[in-house]
């Protein structure tokens, strides 16, 4: 009985940390410039396909290719900002909706492109240092790829925290607080925004690579994770790194418990229910700043 409880709790924690990191990238971009990236799940999906391709053609283990994919996604994030988002920011009519639907159109485009290139069927990375291995501690089974993913997620959070302490991190925060005033001291906010997008995309890229180590890869894999990421971010509070971490783990746990107690197909109902309840009590989320 205790072993089962622990099994559920560990399962929730391992998944929750992935959710947290996916959400962190989303939250970073939102906090910086008040834009919800509806193509966030698709960025994760692209990172998973990148991992799959690198694994298939170069035989690299997911852990080895982390920096490569992170850099690729960083570049993609910068590109998306420069090509689309900067334009969406400069429209002077209906700005909120334009931003939503530009990223939405981008999401549909990326999904179509992935389907065009890779086809619709599920793929998976099934060899590697950790692939398929589990460890057992006192009757609790630990799938090693997920354990590794959790450690990478924690490391990525530490990395984001360190970045926020640097001078660049301060400039990010300053731009977040007053995007017009930074120009007065010679800071190019477009530059900061572009780097912010790069950083957000790289973050979800890291999550995608680690997820690809134990999850199926397909063009539509992003949608579900994105939905959970939006809930995580709204639950934790937009723009809060700590909020994303706490809410991600919370959601992982609620999902695991709902699946165990009720029924696996209802696991997300539990998650969404908790989210609604928290929002009723705290509309800004757990750690949301006003």
């Amino acid at each position, binding site marked *: 009985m205790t072993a089962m409880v622990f099994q559920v709790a560990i399962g929730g924690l391992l998944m929750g940390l992935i959710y947290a990191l996916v959400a962190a990238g989303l939250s970073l971009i939102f906090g910086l410039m008040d834009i919800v990236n509806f193509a966030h799940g698709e960025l994760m999906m692209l990172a998973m396909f990148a991992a799959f391709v690198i694994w298939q053609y170069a035989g690299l283990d997911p852990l080895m290719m982390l920096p490569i994919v992170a850099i690729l996604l960083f570049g993609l994030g910068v590109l998306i900002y420069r090509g689309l988002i900067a334009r969406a920011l400069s429209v*002077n009519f209906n700005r909120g909706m*334009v931003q939503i639907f530009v990223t*939405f159109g981008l*999401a*549909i485009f990326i999904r179509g492109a992935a*389907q065009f290139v890779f086809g619709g069927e599920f793929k998976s990375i099934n060899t590697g240092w950790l692939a398929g291995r589990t460890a057992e501690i006192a009757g609790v089974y630990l799938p090693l790829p997920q354990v590794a993913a959790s450690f990478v997620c924690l490391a990525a959070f530490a990395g984001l925290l360190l970045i926020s302490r640097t001078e660049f991190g301060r400039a990010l925060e300053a731009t977040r607080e007053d995007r017009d005033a930074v120009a007065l001291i010679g800071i190019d906010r477009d530059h900061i925004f572009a780097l912010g997008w790069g950083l957000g995309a790289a973050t979800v890229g890291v999550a995608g690579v680690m997820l690809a180590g134990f999850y199926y890869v397909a063009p539509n894999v992003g949608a579900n994770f994105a939905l959970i990421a939006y809930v995580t971010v*709204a639950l934790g509070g937009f723009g809060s790194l700590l909020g994303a971490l706490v809410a991600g783990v919370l959601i992982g746990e609620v999902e695991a418990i709902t699946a165990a107690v009720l029924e696996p*197909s209802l696991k997300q109902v539990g998650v*969404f229910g908790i989210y609604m309840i928290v929002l009723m009590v705290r*509309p800004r989320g757990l750690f949301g700043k006003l």
Partner: protein
Amino acid sequence: MDNLITRRRRGELWIGAVILVVLILLPLPIADAYTRNLIIISILFAGLAQAWNILGGYCGQISLGHSLYFGIGAYVSTLLFVRLGVPPLVGMFAGGLIGGLIALLVGWPCFRLSGHYYAIATVVVAEIGYLLFLNWDFVGGAMGVYIPFKGDSWVALQFRTQKLPYHYLVLAFATATWIAAWVIEGSRWGFSWRAVKDDVIAARSLGVRVFPSKMAAAAISGFFTGMGGAIYAQYVGYIDPDSTMNGQLAILIALPAVLGGVGTLWGPFLGAAVLTPLSELSRSYLGGSGRGVDLMLYGLVIVVVALARPAGLVSLFGIRRRPKGVADGSPA
């Protein structure tokens, strides 16, 4: 000034009447079922987009969960018909009423949220509904519900081979949404809602009761969306959570309004006239064997239109509902 407005509003009625006559005559020379189907779906989405526009455009509440009201409407009328034998002509209104009621229930907690928090909450609520219906055996679960055919009838809204009756049914539906929008535009409510959309605090200071305004807009919007769902169910004869409650559907409902021109009388229709055929045609000609080209094209169109015509496609015709205030155009 007042004269100008009434004259313009009367002009819009005339334009509407002319378009209505054209749409009544449109299917007559068209024989093939594919094209007629395309037109029916486009008009249905025009009505749905107009219904969305009432809440999203006029009142500024960006709902990404209208699939819920659509699905509820479809399920209510279908289950009333299948289980209790209530004719869909009546069930359609029941579906609309329940849809509006659900919209009120959703609005109660969600309208306290603002901006992105609201948009995401609507996605989540719709997703909860979708998951519940998927796992609820009483309503058919994932298997869905087949609507048995009981003979051609306007009461049951069933026609085995004919498309024409459905054409006039969706046209009546879309016309009703348009008239609702037209009435709202000229009414005190329309004024209050636009104030809520532009600036909540300013609206309050003008004596607008913000929360009731949002609720009224949600109820009307949910009513028409539910009605559209009921019509859709009778048209296709089969419903399941994936075809009537999928989150993707919420976007398909909102998109024509946004890209056509939010908060305008013609935007949702124009958007649907362009987007729905585009989506359907690209799916049938490019989407075969799941190659994704149709999605790429569709996504590209959304991005390009949103960036090139932020005020919507209606702005191509020089139709601007009203001069924009500082709310959207404040200098950087």
